[in-house]
């Protein structure tokens, strides 16, 4: 159930995937591609298993192999058991979860701008290396699209550029779509303001051998808020209203809470052996994307 919307969320004034985005992608393309090949991409390249849809090769049967993978026709012709090998699609798909809920539409520049661009840069790098991408979006409604091949780059970016909206439930639903999907690694780009619900959802989709990186995006207004004085604060996602005097002391404490949230996400990642990247909304998305790729490589 989507939370009540108390105010319209404006479209970002900046074009998310415009000329600036592609100019920056062009500059980091080589570094991104090499990093991808060393890190997340290599996972896909090495992936041959006995389960899949695309047949690749045979190898002799060994004790412990699943009897269901034995090629009985070859056994009849050759008299020795062989098992069939398929490209492991599960290990070759990158999951990208983008938080495009209402809370991401804040900050200057807006948090969702850099979040979408990071997700877009990672998705383009994956598609360029032949790795399919499962893009899950937590927005007004959660949605997910699986895309493969360079030709689907435009569709990927269009999917990631959906309007912001929705609340924590939408994001949790998007993350949980990875649970049943055949992804080999995934990245969650969010502000993690619904820390408990979001991390619990991440925990549910973790699998052994499925590396993940949590990218937390926060804005300067959250980390170093000004004292707005007498205000009525309205939560953009839940509609919760707070009224009173927000003085300098309250602003300092609010900023401290935002920084503590970063520490909690980082601690969760360390405990679960995940990667974590902290991004302020005014940071260059290219540098952030390279850092995410480096984390994936390290997890490898």
């Amino acid at each position: 159930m989507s939370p009540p919307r108390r105010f319209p969320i404006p479209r970002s004034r900046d074009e998310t995937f415009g000329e600036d985005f592609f100019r920056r992608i062009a500059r980091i393309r080589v570094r991104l591609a090499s990093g991808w090949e060393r890190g997340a991409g290599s996972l896909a390249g090495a992936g041959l298993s006995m389960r899949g849809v695309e047949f690749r090769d045979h190898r002799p049967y060994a004790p412990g192999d699943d009897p269901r993978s034995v090629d009985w026709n070859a056994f009849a012709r050759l008299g020795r058991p062989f098992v069939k090998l398929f490209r492991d699609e599960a290990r070759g798909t990158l999951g990208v979860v983008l938080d495009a809920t209402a809370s991401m539409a804040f900050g200057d520049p807006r948090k969702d701008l850099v979040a979408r661009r990071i997700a877009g840069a990672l998705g383009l790098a994956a598609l360029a290396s032949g790795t399919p991408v499962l893009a899950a979006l937590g927005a007004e409604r959660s949605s997910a699209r699986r895309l493969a091949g360079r030709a689907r780059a435009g569709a990927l970016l269009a999917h990631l550029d959906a309007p912001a909206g929705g609340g924590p439930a939408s994001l949790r639903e998007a993350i949980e779509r990875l649970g049943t999907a055949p992804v080999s690694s995934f990245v969650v780009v969010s502000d993690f303001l619904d820390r408990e619900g979001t991390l619990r959802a991440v925990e549910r989709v973790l699998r052994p051998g499925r590396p993940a990186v949590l990218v937390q995006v926060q804005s300067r207004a959250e980390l170093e808020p000004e004292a707005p004085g007498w205000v009525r604060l309205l939560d953009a996602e839940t509609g919760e209203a707070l009224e009173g005097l927000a003085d300098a002391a309250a602003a300092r404490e609010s900023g401290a809470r935002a920084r503590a949230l970063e520490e909690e996400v980082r601690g969760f990642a360390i405990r679960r052996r995940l990667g974590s990247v902290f991004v302020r909304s005014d940071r260059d998305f290219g540098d952030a994307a390279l850092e995410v790729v480096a984390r994936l490589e390290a997890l490898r």
Partner: protein
Amino acid sequence: MTFASPWALLLLLGLPLLLFLERMRLLRSQRPVASAALWRGLLRKPEERSGGALASLDLPAGLRGAAFLLGAVGVAGPSLPGAGPGTLRILLDRSASMGAEAGEGRSRLSLAVEKALHGLEAFPGDTRVVLERPPLDPGPVSTDLATARRLLSEAEPTDAPLDLRTHLAPVAPGQEVLLVTDGVPPDLPPDVRVLAVGPPADNAGFVAFEAEGAGAGEIGLWGLLRNFSARGLEREIVATGAAEVSLGRVSLGPGEARALSARVGPAPVVGLRCLGTDALRADDAVLASAAGASLRVRVGPGVPGPVLRALAAQRGLALEQGPKGVSGGSADLEVGARGEGSARFRIALDLLRGEPFEATGVRFLSPLPEEIDLSGVRVGPVRIGPEEERPLILARTPEGEERPIAVEDDRGWVLHFDPSAGNWKDHPSFPVFFAVAAQRARERSGRVGFVRSGDPLPELPGGAARVGVLERPGRPPLCVNLLSPEESSLAGGTAEPVLRPPRGGRGKGLAPVAFLLAAGGVGVSLLLEARRG
């Protein structure tokens, strides 16, 4: 700080309304945030704060409030003392001593005014003048140079004493003040220029007086006469009662005081008088009245309601109605349609004699305050008063000539029109007219005497603030004349100052600064709001 338009400060009453609206605006404004969790429990509620709405205002709101405050002050036209270049304050001494003869049959006041007018000829025409003419002055008049010259030339001395120090006390350093007097008080502020006239003059006066019943219907009088001059004086003393009784001539050495006593027959007014040429006539008579503090006013039949109301609004009047009054005896002031009776002063209303005409405008003459704006006053049909009497109110004929419609004769004032007709009765000048008439009646009744036993101080004329009333248990209070030696000795100088035009043109004071600060405050508050929003 002074204000050109003090009434504009009433705008400040709007400040609480502004605070209320500001609070309502803040209450209604809401700010969306990414997560309320980051602020939960951190906002302080209004009940946790001391100071109410003011304390809950933020900086932009405070700036807007300050801008409103400065704007209101700016509209009021503030100016610092002395910061109004181009304004000359003239303090004209009209005390009794200024009526003393200064030679060639002219009074000191006449001579002083002539000198002052001569000195003002070099002043630019746009010079603003604040003219004060104490004592018995309705208040300072702020006017242009031409009007000030006219008012100066029409000034007349009074019978009242004057303490110049009380009028010079508000003089701030740097303020342009011209003092026209014959008695220069010591320790003058350095920036006060003095135009002094007349040589030191003789003065002897009563400094204490007592009147009380002495039995057998007689009244015992006691007074203390003091010589304030630096040389010996001789004065003839007269006791006033049912008849005047001479007490003979009294010789007083310099600074010497002598007690005098007498018994007189009962009379409405009793007292002692000191005869002789004296520079300060104010303290030459000490009078007491059995009537106490109230001036007895007999109101004749047929007196219009507005006149009754105007009289009733005056302080110190005891109104009586009926042909002989309630308490019998003669009244101090009589107000009636025909002005008949035995009162010492009367106001005769609507004596419709003379040639009638329609007045197109009226104006007051002294002793009525001439500064009152009478434009818009319509007095209805009027008749021309006798030209040989002193005019009080002039009316303009349709031909543009001015004719007296109210005059002062030897018995009082006579109106040659119906004061309740037209709209004069609703004009602020209407009660002022009767206030001055009551003042005149007091003078005529002898109550303007310098000290009066038992009189409350506020009822005494200007300068009488220095009359002390010594309360004595079981006995009538004793009035003590506390005249200062400086005033009584009339230590006048003869040096004439060089009159300089006030600096610059007409000062604008602090209004532009206030407006500038107000605009700045609004601008900064809007900027802060924009950044915050």
